[in-house]
């Protein structure tokens, strides 16, 4: 017994180190697994507060560019709107008939990383603004990521520039779909994998979200094909996608809630259970 106690006293530094190291590894592994309640995120009172203080100052330096982006988006939406109202045969009088499946909320990015292999953003909306895990986040120019942790007033977003991220995407022209991933090399280029060999792939073609998940609406812009690679004997293309978004310069974003998500997931689970 005495021996054991002596052992502990003699090696107390090593044991303390081992204990803390194992805890850190646990946190690390937990952050590598996709869906899990994490303890260590920047969506909390302290970090969120400091980041929003920082962004309230640095915001002013990028105002002009951000305004330009929003104006561009307004222009695009106006054009679509005018096309729509020209083509509409019967005008929708009551907004309750406009039962869109998706609800959009605005948010501001208060922290953004893009230089690591696993990047996250922090936004200034949280549970109190009805943001919850697994909602999609887009910017005026295209897709950004998926909410992966929330606190009262803040949420963190798993960026598409993260090796854990995998988003269903398709070619706009031909409907062939694959998965959007990132190989950590360039913050403006993502990879689209598993596009079947039959698909007509042309450099410059647009890639949009696939709508097979409950997270993003179909047809949200992602980017254009920059380069493609078909390995010998492989049935699938690997495409390099030049993103529309400048992921290094984000401020105003929209969080998308799919109002039917629960219903769809419930149905799918029920089908899985039967099998």
């Amino acid at each position, binding site marked *: 017994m005495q021996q054991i106690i002596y052992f502990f006293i003699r090696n107390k*530094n*090593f044991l303390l*180190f081992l204990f803390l190291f194992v*805890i*850190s590894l646990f946190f*690390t592994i937990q952050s590598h697994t996709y869906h899990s309640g994490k303890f260590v*995120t920047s969506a909390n009172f302290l970090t969120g507060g400091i980041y929003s203080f920082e962004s309230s100052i640095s915001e002013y330096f990028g105002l002009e560019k951000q305004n330009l982006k929003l104006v561009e988006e307004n222009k695009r939406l106006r054009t679509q709107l005018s096309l729509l109202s020209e083509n509409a045969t019967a005008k929708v009088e009551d907004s309750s008939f406009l039962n869109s499946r998706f609800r959009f909320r605005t948010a501001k990015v208060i922290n953004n990383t893009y*230089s690591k292999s*696993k990047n996250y953003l922090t936004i200034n909306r949280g549970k109190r603004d009805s943001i919850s895990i697994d909602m999609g986040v887009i910017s005026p120019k295209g897709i950004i990521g998926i909410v992966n942790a929330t606190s009262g007033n803040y949420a963190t977003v798993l960026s598409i520039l993260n090796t854990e991220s995998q988003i269903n995407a398709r070619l706009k022209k031909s409907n062939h779909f694959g998965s959007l991933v990132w190989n*950590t090399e360039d913050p403006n280029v993502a990879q689209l994998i598993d596009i079947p060999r039959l698909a007509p792939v042309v450099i410059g073609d647009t890639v949009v979200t696939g709508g097979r998940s409950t997270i993003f609406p179909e047809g949200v812009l992602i980017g254009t094909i920059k380069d493609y690679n078909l390995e010998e004997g492989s049935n699938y293309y690997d495409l390099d996608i030049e993103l529309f978004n400048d992921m290094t310069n984000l401020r105003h974003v929209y969080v998308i809630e799919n109002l039917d998500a629960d219903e769809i997931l419930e149905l799918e689970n029920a089908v899985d259970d039967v099998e």
Partner: protein
Amino acid sequence: MLNNDFFINTVRFIALVLLQILLLNNINFMGYINPYAYITFILVFPLNANKSLLIFLAFLLGLTIDMFMDSGGVHAAACSFIAYIRPWILKFSFGVSYEHNTIRIGKTSMAQRFSYVGIMVLLHHFILFSLEIFSLQHILLIVKSTLFSGIFTILLVLGLIILFSRKK
């Protein structure tokens, strides 16, 4: 005296965390090179202080940085590791004399200081990037990031040490 040390180290802890998250994390030199100079806290922590305390504080420092950077526990792991092996590195760089409390890091020769800072920084960065990237396929990326960020950090840490030691 004890209170004074306590005060200085608390201020240093907070100041270095703020410096790291507000300034250094936004440098992104050549796209991905950031210095991690917050570990200066571990390097200049009083040499004769309690070792268990240092390991615990290093863990806390790393975890704070992790919280801000959403990186799980990679900084905490790397920090507690270099805090644990610090006595051996000190012995290697400064000889046994450091144990007799005669050494002030700010007053040692440049070569000794450089070897101490260099070894600690490179070890920290190697563990940090290995855990963060977490795949053998990207071993080249790990080595590259360690070297580039490491050089950046070493220069910055040496500068910070001069800054910290001038006050006395």
